[in-house]
């Protein structure tokens, strides 16, 4: 199936790992985010910024992947914050009751600031 791949770039900024997620977090692609989280946690990463600036779609499977990752990073003694969510994505977070669970920042810079 074309376009099935989810592109996730990870960039290390100091101690924090920035995951830039591209396009859609749906039932096809969300397991890839979970796998990425797990792989990075295994290498000792525990602080994450999820850059949502390129995410145009999220379903419950995407929410689940974000929640799983955040739970695991918290269990490892770190934290996961999110930045640059588009309005329609924030709306899904609101409906799902996810907004109070996460620190949401407008920009990556502000998200990085929260780790200092």
């Amino acid at each position, binding site marked *: 199936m074309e376009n*099935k791949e989810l592109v996730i770039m990870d960039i290390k900024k100091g101690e924090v790992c920035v995951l830039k997620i591209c396009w859609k977090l*749906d*039932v096809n692609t969300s397991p890839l985010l979970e796998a990425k989280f797990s792989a990075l946690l295994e290498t000792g990463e525990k602080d994450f910024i999820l850059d949502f600036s390129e995410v*145009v*779609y999220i379903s*419950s499977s995407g929410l689940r992947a974000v*929640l799983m990752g955040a739970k695991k990073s918290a269990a490892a003694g770190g934290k996961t914050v999110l930045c640059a969510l588009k309005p329609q994505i924030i*709306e*899904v977070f609101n*409906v799902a009751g996810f907004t109070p669970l996460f620190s949401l920042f407008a920009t990556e810079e502000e998200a990085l600031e929260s780790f200092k």
Partner: protein
Amino acid sequence: MEKEFVANSNAGQQCVILENKIDEIRRLSIIVEEFFLEHQLPSETLFKMNLVFEEIISNIIYYGYEDDTKHEIVINMNLLNGILAVEIKDDGKAFNPLANPEPRLDAPLEERPIGGLGIYLVKHLVDEIRYSRYNNFNILSFRKNIHDKG
């Protein structure tokens, strides 16, 4: 500014038959997008409808069947007077997704259950939703007012 939406002059119907394979959700999303473009419906609603479709169809495919054979999921979309009415019919085991208990949304991160969110989202993104069991088919029908924000 959104395009002015003229009631009555913008009616349309579409029937889509999917196989019980998870890849089919992508195909459906493309068909739904074309339907929305053809009828000049707002993109905010398109996003929500694709989300609703993904949750319902993936639920049917993952939990509806007790065998490994091919099944059909029949989707009828009907646009009239600014209301999109959708019916989704499957021949899986009798299951009313609307009867599921709602997930606890007040739980903190560590205690938040992983499942149960999909149908909760569906219920909150459509305007009216009903389930019925008829002749060994599950029939889930919902309506979405296209004009409404939200």
